[in-house]
């Protein structure tokens, strides 16, 4: 198979519901998503010869639970963007002939904590020695630290930051599966509880249960399935630093920039070709960093770009159209849900469907600006 040989996403599905699911274990969420995605592709588990997911439960447990003996396993676990990297690695494996059809699963009981591993403490780890002693409490108190520096350097206002949540709620209002759908205003956001100043509750993602899965296979088989094929036109991955304090530049994401550059180069596209965009939004500032890192706006202008309505319904660059991690769902490793919405938009089956999506770009974050993955998804092969 040549390097030019394309791959497609032939199946994509989420768990039957997302939100608060205390009756599901983490493994059950993987299994239900996997069964749904394989059915969506019109395949059976016997067609799957590759598996990719994050520990725990990890590829061995998930494959075994599904009765699959894979010829290819990927346990890449670099945070919430891991599933974008799984797509990238699956594309390479399929091109290399290591596998023909790879199943990528995500399931996380992030809210109900059923069948989850305890959060590792690790006070001898590098973050355990040099960040935890200062009272960090997960991402809310650390992922958020760079934004004050950005605000000082580029004049982003508290109102513009708050508007990111307002714009995404407008999309969520159109999505019946979204956890929060009622319209909100900038005043509502700024009046919500302070979590880690300058961040308020409504500028922080949800914490939910749910799962999703993808079936990736060769583009030669694009006509074989019930749903329109979604072509994987370009992919990229990169990293910045393992701790927020060591992020190279607090005003820009190196990982987003480098992963985006690789994905756009492979796909042969520019920002002008993009009809739909998903940017992992664990917190309200992340889409701002994503828009700038991928060149959709100049540095320092993304806050105003969003506040001017460009990314909301009716705007010229629809962004986070499922409502995002801020309003739709956020299990902890959100990247799978960003891919799912990109696939739905390219297929034309999204709840808040954007007209004529030829190219959707998905930008995933891992850790706290630690890693990034970018996918360029298209309706046609190139």
């Amino acid at each position, binding site marked *: 198979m040549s390097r030019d040989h394309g791959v497609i996403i032939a199946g994509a599905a989420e768990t039957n519901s997302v939100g608060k699911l205390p009756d599901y274990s983490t493994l059950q969420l993987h299994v239900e998503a996997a069964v749904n995605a394989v059915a969506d592709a019109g395949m059976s588990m016997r067609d799957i010869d590759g598996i990719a997911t994050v520990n725990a439960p990890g590829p061995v447990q998930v494959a075994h639970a599904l009765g699959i003996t894979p010829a290819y396993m990927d346990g890449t676990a670099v945070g919430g963007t891991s599933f974008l990297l799984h797509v990238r690695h699956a594309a390479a494996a399929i091109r290399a002939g290591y596998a023909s059809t790879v199943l990528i699963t995500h399931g996380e009981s992030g809210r109900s904590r059923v069948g989850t591993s305890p959060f590792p403490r690790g006070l001898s780890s590098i973050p355990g020695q*040099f960040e935890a002693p200062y009272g960090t*409490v997960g991402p*809310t108190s650390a992922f958020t630290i760079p934004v004050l520096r950005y605000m000082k350097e580029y004049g982003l206002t508290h109102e513009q930051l708050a508007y990111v949540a307002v714009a995404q709620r407008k999309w969520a209002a159109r999505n019946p599966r979204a956890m929060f759908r009622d319209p909100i205003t900038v005043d509502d956001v700024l009046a919500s509880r302070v979590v880690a*100043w300058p*961040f308020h509750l409504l500028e922080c993602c949800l914490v939910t249960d749910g799962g999703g899965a993808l079936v990736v296979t060769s583009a030669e088989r694009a006509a074989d399935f019930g749903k329109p094929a979604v072509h994987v036109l370009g992919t990229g991955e990169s990293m910045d630093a393992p701790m927020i304090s060591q992020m190279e530049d607090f005003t820009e994401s190196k990982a987003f920039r480098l992963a985006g550059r690789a994905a756009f180069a492979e796909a042969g596209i520019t920002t002008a070709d993009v009809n739909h965009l998903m940017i992992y939004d664990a917190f309200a500032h992340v889409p701002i960093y994503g828009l700038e890192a991928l060149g959709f706006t100049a540095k320092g202008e993304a806050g105003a770009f969003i506040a001017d309505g460009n990314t909301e319904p009716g705007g010229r660059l629809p962004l986070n159209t499922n409502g995002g991690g801020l309003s739709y769902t956020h299990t902890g490793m959100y990247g799978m849900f960003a891919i799912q919405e990109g696939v739905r938009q390219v297929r034309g089956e999204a709840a808040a469907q954007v007209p004529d999506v030829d190219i959707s770009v998905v930008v995933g974050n891992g850790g706290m600006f630690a890693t990034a993955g970018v996918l360029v998804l298209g309706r046609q092969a190139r």
Partner: protein
Amino acid sequence: MSAPAAATRASAKPLPEPTPETQPFWDGCAAGELRIQRCRECGKPYFYPRPVCPECGSTDVEWFTASGRATLYSYVINHRPARGFEDDGPYAIAVVQLAEGPRMMTNLVGVPNTPEDLILDMELQVTFEQRGEISLPVFTPAGAQQ
């Protein structure tokens, strides 16, 4: 605050567990010095402790005592306390830039932890907070006496 109350709080806060490559840093803190590393080939000072220069890849690196001067690079004021921080009220989790260049996470003492009092780029100096067996570097406004 009374000493026993402070001791109780300190014992509940996360206590770093030094590893062989970080031990010189923590030994420095115990001696009241902020010791970090620098490359003997390219001269780059760096933090966190590790045996390879992040700039040029050399393993010819050395420890030195930093000035302890820094500026406030960025922060949040955390309203959902970590274990052991419950009695502190909202507290700043800050990243400071050392005069020598590297950045590190820290807490800010000797100054109210409010947006009005914590101004980016304000000048700071290191001081040390005893927590169990560990002396933890924290920062205070330059000129303030701890």
